[in-house]
């Protein structure tokens, strides 16, 4: 499909005509009109045959089960809409998908078979044990020092006690809990059980918008709970806090808190094929109080 996109800025092409772009020789071999693309169909058939042979080769030595039912042909639209890039539950990776809601493009990251952890200080983008990382708590200047904004517990040690934000995230023994509360027993529990705790803005609670009404627009990132699974969701354009919460509710997010946003905030993910999705100042030196929510391979 990508090759269909190949056209120089100086060329034109009548869609569906099978004509070559003006200024080039030969017919348009990549038209989507089936009768006009014999070469593409030949390649598709060859690829399917190769895939089938490879599948048989992989399955035969293990068992003598009958060959699996052939998969239904994938509709063109399905391929383009569903951009899920990984499906094997055997490994740790991040499923990455794109969607547009209310005309707001979003990128959705779902860690699979990975354990969440809060890490302080600079982490290496080359750390291959991490399948998804996103900056967590906000930090800023307090006098001359850079400090974490909001209550923060790291490995059971209280580093900050402010309650300026009502959203919270607690990590205890590999389990993560998010919600909205001015006081929560998870704070004490994280102190007594060497857990991790940070605060951020609450966005969604029980499927309802609870985001603070702030008019300034920015790129938003949210830690979201959908049907018992955690997702990191990025807005691809600058929008308000409330607009972001609205699209999360439209995505059936039950609970969500913000993560550090803006174009500079670091987030990277690694899908099953090893492809990386990076954004923010990945290679910059960040303050020691910078914190990351990371999902590591099991």
């Amino acid at each position, binding site marked *: 499909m990508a090759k269909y996109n190949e056209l120089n800025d*100086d060329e034109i092409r009548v869609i569906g005509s099978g004509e070559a772009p003006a200024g080039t020789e030969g017919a348009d071999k990549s038209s989507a009109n089936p009768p006009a693309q014999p070469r593409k169909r030949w390649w598709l058939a060859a690829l399917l045959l190769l895939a089938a042979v490879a599948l048989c080769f992989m399955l035969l030595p293990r068992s003598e089960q009958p060959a699996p039912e052939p998969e239904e042909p994938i509709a063109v639209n399905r391929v383009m809409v569903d951009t899920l890039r990984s499906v094997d539950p055997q490994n740790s990776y991040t499923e990455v998908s794109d969607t547009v809601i209310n005309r707001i493009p979003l990128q959705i990251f779902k860690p699979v078979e990975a354990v969440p952890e809060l890490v302080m200080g600079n982490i290496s983008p080359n750390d291959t044990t991490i399948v998804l990382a996103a900056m967590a708590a906000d930090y800023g200047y307090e006098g001359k020092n850079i400090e974490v904004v909001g209550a923060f517990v790291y490995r059971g040690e209280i580093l900050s006690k402010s309650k300026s934000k009502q959203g919270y995230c607690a990590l205890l023994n590999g389990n993560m809990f998010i919600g909205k509360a001015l006081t929560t027993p998870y704070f004490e529990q994280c102190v007594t059980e060497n857990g991790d705790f940070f605060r951020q803005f609450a966005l969604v609670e029980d499927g309802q918008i609870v985001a603070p009404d702030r008019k300034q627009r920015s790129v938003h990132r949210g830690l979201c709970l959908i049907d018992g699974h955690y997702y990191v969701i990025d807005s691809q354009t600058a929008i308000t806090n409330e607009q972001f919460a609205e699209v999360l509710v439209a995505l059936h997010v039950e609970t969500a808190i913000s993560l550090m946003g803006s174009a500079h905030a670091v987030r990277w993910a690694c899908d099953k094929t090893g492809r990386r999705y990076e954004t923010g100042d990945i290679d910059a030196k960040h303050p020691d109080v910078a914190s990351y929510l990371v999902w590591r391979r099991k």
Partner: protein
Amino acid sequence: MEEHLICMTTTELFRFTSGQIVYISAEGNYSHIHTSGGEDFLVGFQLGQLEQMIAGQMPDNARRFIRIGRNYIVNEHYICSISVPRQRLVLLDRTDKKYALTPSREALKALKQHLEDTYGKIQ
């Protein structure tokens, strides 16, 4: 039955007749579908993907659409004027709303030539 371009994402569905689409512009991995009347719909498809969808979903009307360079697909029916020296392509929709696009001069030359070939050379 009238043909439609149907663009589906996991949560949204857009449906346009060929006559509704004035032009489509690229924005990275996304595209803006500009419809008659001035509405602009952002869809999560690359321009090349939409080109393929038009060809596949609207076989009878696909030839109305011309891919111009990397950034535009225009509905030929709405082309109002082409100015190569000014590097300007003007589209005029059903409501007389104007859309000014700036493809490359070479692309405009090719477009002008294509229309001349199609409709006969104007002396």
